[in-house]
């Protein structure tokens, strides 16, 4: 049976779609945005994370063990008094994951909510994603995506779900590639499709100081959205200085390539010009 890899399930997400929602994070993303807040969601594989900051270095976890779950990790995850070494990423069959997500369904539906699928990049595990969606319906489903996916996958997703939350990180291909590692042509093509579709969507722009918070980028983004039929609004998410904290967990270096201390520019008027509802989260 096909399995997907998930790194977290959050209950009571209140800023990711209507009503009370459960938020499920798919593990793995083809983009490597230099500001990424969820570095543990980048790799498609299960991985060991250790919060070294609160470690007392008793080295209990370095002693050899026979647990199946610890094989190949070099650490034992079953002895730490603070539960610091942990495996991030768990494989599920779609039906099994759906069962977990549907627990408390009445709370979700009672509030006009549902499930939001986020990541990582949900569209990077497409077969599993569509399998999961079929198990979750008729519950309200939203997907949070970078838009980086083959168009057949993207279009099928748009047709099968109730709400899209799509990132537009930069309109300039060069800059996009520099900071995310990938071209934006596929993303913009998918965006164009989304703008013409019947599925309601929100656009989210992470505002990264000195990278995309320029007047021209905002103007170009707004221009791309001007004729969208079902755009419900644009959400601007100013960069938070909390991102670096998680990098040490996955043994990655936080090297954002921009000045994290710099104040972000927030241009909301440009969107208003096109009658696009804008909010800052």
């Amino acid at each position, binding site marked *: 049976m096909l399995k997907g890899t998930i790194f977290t399930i959050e209950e*009571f997400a209140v*800023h990711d779609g209507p009503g*009370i929602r459960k938020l499920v994070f798919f593990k793995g993303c083809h983009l490597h945005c230099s500001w990424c807040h969820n570095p543990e969601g980048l790799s498609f594989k299960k991985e060991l994370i250790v919060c070294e900051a609160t470690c007392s270095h008793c080295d209990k976890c370095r002693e050899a063990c026979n647990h199946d779950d610890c094989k190949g990790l070099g650490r034992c995850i079953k*002895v*730490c008094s603070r539960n610091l070494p942990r495996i991030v990423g768990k494989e599920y069959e779609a039906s099994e994951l759906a069962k977990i997500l549907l627990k*408390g369904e*009445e709370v979700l539906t009672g509030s006009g909510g549902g499930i939001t699928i986020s990541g990582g990049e949900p569209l990077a595990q497409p077969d599993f994603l569509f399998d999961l969606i079929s198990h979750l319906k008729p519950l309200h489903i939203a997907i949070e995506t970078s838009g980086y996916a083959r168009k057949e996958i993207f279009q099928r997703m748009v047709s099968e779900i109730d709400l899209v939350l799509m990132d537009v990180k930069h309109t300039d291909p060069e800059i996009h590639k520099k900071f995310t590692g990938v071209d934006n042509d596929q993303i913009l093509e998918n965006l164009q499709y989304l703008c013409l579709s019947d599925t309601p969507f929100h656009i989210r722009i992470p505002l990264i100081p000195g990278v995309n918070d320029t007047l021209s980028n905002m103007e170009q983004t707004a221009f791309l959205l001007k004729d969208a039929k079902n755009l419900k609004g644009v959400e601007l998410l100013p960069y938070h200085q909390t991102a670096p904290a998680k990098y040490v967990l996955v043994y990655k270096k936080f090297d954002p390539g921009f000045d994290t201390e710099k104040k972000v520019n927030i241009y909301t008027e440009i969107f208003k010009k096109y009658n696009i509802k804008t909010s800052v989260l």
Partner: protein
Amino acid sequence: MNERIKLMLEDMLQKKHRQYRQEIYIHEIGGLTDTFKQQKLSDVQRAKKRLSWVLSHEIPVIQPGEKIVFTRTVSKIPEIFTEDEWVNIKNDHYVHEMGRVCNINANYDYTIEVGLEQRRKEVLESIVVHSARGNIKEVEFLEAVVQSIDDIEQLVDRYAQKALKTGREDIFLLLQNVPCRGAKTFYEALQFFRILHFALWANGNYHNTIGRFDQYMLKYLESDLNSGILNSDSALELLEEFFLSFNKDSDLYPGMQQGDNGQSMVLGGVNENGDDVFNILSEMCLKASLELKLIDPKINLRVNKNTSIGRYDLGTELTKEGLGFPQYSNDDIVIPGLISKGYDIKDARNYVMAACWEFIIPGNGMDIPNIGAVSFVKIVNKSIEKDLKQCKDFDSFIESVKGGIKNELNILLPTFLNLYMEPAPFLSLLMNGCIEKARDISFGSIYNNYGIHGTGISTAVDSLAAIKKYIFEEKSVTAEEMIFAIENNFEDQYELWHKLKYDAPKMGKDEDFADDIAVKLVDVFAALTDDLTNERGGCFRPGGGSAMYYLWHVKDIGASADGRKKGEPLSANFSPSLDIKLDGPISIIKSFSKPDMRKMMNGGPLTLELHDSVFRNPESQRKVSHLVKAYMDMGGQQLQINAVNREKLIEAQKHPENYKNLIVRVWGWSGYFVELDQIYQDHIIQRVELNV
């Protein structure tokens, strides 16, 4: 909030009103108590003379701009018995807390309506009746009540004279009407209440709850709004000043911690016929509380399955401000539960909250809702020690726990025999039937039930779940190993401990494995209290609240089978264990709605901590309302929510001077974080780390 109220609030936060407090020397207060002893006065005489002493020592204070007067200047209420006398009394009697009548809800309504003159007449008539029968004790009691009315009126007179002298003719005129005559206006009714409430505290009574204020005060407000005496702005202004008055003297009120003063106000709910009675005053009270952002009065909102989401939104507004209230109470669970415990349907529908969450009946209830507590964790631990090795299956282990609870009750109950409370003649005036019967309220009322808290439910359930899974089902741990590990506080038992702490089933994750055990434990506890009665003919009410026992009980228990190490706290009330990985609030409310809380008629709120970012905008606030509603619709009994931010709490511990007004919900009441003992502060920080 208008300018006048803003200024008053500012002055209050700067504690300017405390400048009027008198320095009364301890020896003077002690001298009074010694005199009582020397003169061999009866307890009724002493109670009477104490109130006379306090009220005659009061110095009237009318602060600039103030419209509702009465500020305490006597900072200490004398004892009526010397220490030696208390020792003797305690040798012969059970004495609850301070030995004074507390934590009940007076019938303010009737007295405010008819006035003290009328009440005096009633008492005098009763004196005639009881004199004719030669009932000496009864007459002594009634005369003490008359004296208390006289004492209050004398102080009111002195306030009136002071008003005249200081050019406050408005106050002089106000005090010509109330409290002697019944209130005619909302303003008069508020001033009347303030005087009665003031006198209760002066009488030595404490946890003097407010009750269904939006019900008994509505007629005055409506009449004033109809006649044009008030409009909605001027009414709100009066109400806000009235709310301020609850915070004037509250630092003088007895309680376990600052803030634990029992000034609970109940809004909404149903009337005697079962009709919804949330009204304009209920809404106005929520607004006043929202604008003032003070810890008193503490708001409780009664809800039921028909309560609209919009009304929950009004509550969420308060939660958002970090006030720790409203506490929600579910009529659909509470009312049938009270009826099954023998409460009359009309009284059940009229229930209010005692100091924290316990249900009491206005005017008719002399329940002692926090008379004692059983520690579930201690009981489970005892069963482990004594019976685990012999038990062949989990059911027989549950039987052992059941026996443990029974045993604990058998030890506890006889300690409550021969209850003694100081007489409370003035408070008796405000309790139904005391004057006709010439019987002090300290001897009881219609309802004389005792409440037994059950503390550490979740830790006990988690311990039982671990035992069931690992010892009886998987058989991966032996009874001997478990006993050894607990005895040694999991010293060097890294793997077993890790498994119990992080892998074992826990209550609060919406998994039936653990939740079914919670259902069972509640049923067992409730069934064991079912047939018990107390010496006053009352029953015992089981509850899932903890009061302060969540910290106290820890001292008597070692480590537990859920991986909790010795000395680590229990959770407050009916809430998931601390320091465990939970999935989120949806699972929590689902788990905690599974036990049949109609059987837990001493109450006990689920306490949730939500991160303050959840309240960022109206849409997300609405989701909090939906969460509360979902819990109530599923059969949850009570809920209180802290909107908190861990970093802020830690900052407040470091720099208390910058966080004087930071409010948190402690166990059943809201207090100022920086005024709490550190152990309570730390507990809240620990709670926050997990639930957000």
